[in-house]
């Protein structure tokens, strides 16, 4: 089951032009990235010329963003978002991995839960936000709960699928070596499913962030989501665009780091599998 769309990262790396030397290749890669960036900024500038009332141009936005980074008020809101996001992320990851391992190990419960998890993943959770507010009250706990609602499900799904698809030889080996359940989990299960868990965490990371920001956009007085919705309401386009830019940069940068980690783990695993003769 592939419920999460963001799996393009686990696709096999494209074989580059093998005749080019490594430095030339990385230079080409760098230039490609640069060209892509230039195209994006040019598009942004075009949109800006088309509707100057709703967005600020690239140069002005970067200036505003730099000014924001130096202001105390911005950091107060960023800290509020960061606290809610950090708590949600920890709960999503720890809870998701634990539930995923349990559901993966117990085949019957996993089979019962799988379509329910997919259904939970695809419902528009934002409609449930008023209920979260009624249950948790206005404040940080509602935001955390909402972030966890978004983030935990992909972590559960990826972890569960990884455990279910684990190579049976590994588990047989554990039984032959008479490992205790705790040893099996620590020495076999967790190392074997780490790459998939990292994929789950990457998707969970994105969705947790989305959940927290949406939570702040509705019925909140603090955080980056509040800055955005407030910018919309009082028509403070400069702050609005600058906060969005900072948020996008943060999201893309953290995802890239997790993506690189994921690729490295996958390469390492393929290498290990080849050495020990696993298919």
């Amino acid at each position, binding site marked *: 089951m592939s419920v999460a769309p963001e799996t393009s990262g686990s696709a096999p790396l494209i074989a580059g032009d093998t005749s080019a030397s490594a430095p030339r290749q990385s230079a080409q890669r760098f230039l*490609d990235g640069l060209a892509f960036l230039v195209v994006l900024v040019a598009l942004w500038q075009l949109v800006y010329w088309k509707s100057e009332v709703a967005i600020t141009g690239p140069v002005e936005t970067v200036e505003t963003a730099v000014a924001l980074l130096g202001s105390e008020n911005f950091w107060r809101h960023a800290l509020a978002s960061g606290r809610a996001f950090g708590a949600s992320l920890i709960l999503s990851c720890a809870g998701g991995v634990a539930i995923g391992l349990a559901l993966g190990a117990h085949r*019957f419960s996993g089979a019962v839960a799988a379509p*329910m998890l997919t259904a939970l993943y695809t*419902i528009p959770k934002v409609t449930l936000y*008023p209920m979260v507010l009624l249950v948790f009250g206005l404040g940080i706990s509602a935001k955390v709960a909402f972030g966890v609602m978004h983030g935990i499900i992909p972590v559960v799904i990826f972890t569960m699928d990884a455990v279910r698809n684990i190579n049976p030889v590994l588990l047989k080996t554990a039984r032959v070596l008479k490992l205790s359940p705790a040893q099996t989990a620590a020495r076999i299960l967790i190392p074997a499913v780490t790459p998939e868990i990292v994929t789950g965490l990457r998707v969970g990371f994105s969705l947790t962030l989305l959940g927290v920001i949406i939570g702040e*956009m509705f019925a909140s007085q603090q955080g980056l989501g509040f800055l955005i919705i407030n910018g919309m309401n009082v028509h403070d386009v400069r702050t609005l665009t600058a906060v969005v830019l900072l948020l996008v940069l943060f999201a893309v940068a953290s995802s890239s780091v997790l993506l690189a980690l994921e690729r490295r783990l996958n390469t390492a695993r393929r290498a290990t599998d080849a050495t020990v003769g696993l298919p």
Partner: protein
Amino acid sequence: MNRVTLVRLAVIAGFVVVIEALCRFGAINPLTLLPPSEMAAHLLALLASGEINEAMAGTFSNVAIAFALSVVVGFAVGVVIHALPRLRRVCDPLLASYYSVPVFVFYPLLVSLLGLNRWPLVAIGFMFGVTAMVIATLNGLDRVPRVLLKLARVHRMSRSAEVLRIVLPAAAPNLFTGGKLALAYAFIGVIAGEFILSGGGLGYAIAYAYDAFDNRTMYALMLFVLIVVTAVNAALYVWEQRLLRRRGRG
């Protein structure tokens, strides 16, 4: 019906019964959560009165347009990116982090570009759905076995025959998943957009009921959205399983 399905239904039914009991015996404050039976009763009354017909029509037509656009455009973009490995390498991190950007923040911009009508909402649904389709298309095209492409060359198939007979059938499961996700995301985008920003549709009706402390309407509408989305997803899931089984035989 097999045992897994039965247990699954029992779990859901048990959950509803527990909530109902907790509400009825006063363990849950009626200001926080209503008994499910009351939600359902009020939902039926709302549906019968026709009060929410306009909101339903608005939301569902927006979702339908956003979904159709996502699938067509997402597939086309996926094909183009797949054909250009250099472009793909620079797009990958962006595609991977796309869903952490709350697309709703572009609503004012979309209103100023498209006008104050349904199109900004459709655009938000589209922006949510299209990326899922692009990623699924890329995954699907990656998984076309090389040997089948060689087979096409051995048979001297024309380019269009190769695409129709080899590439599309081989990529079909991923494309189907992409379509399923695009629909789910179109729902999420449109309803969340209505909820936070716009002045119409089911999402707005829920937010309005919340602001007016009208819990009965709010929970009835939530239940309605959940039922509709889950039913659509379940139907697609069953259809997909049937297609996969047929492939397995063929």
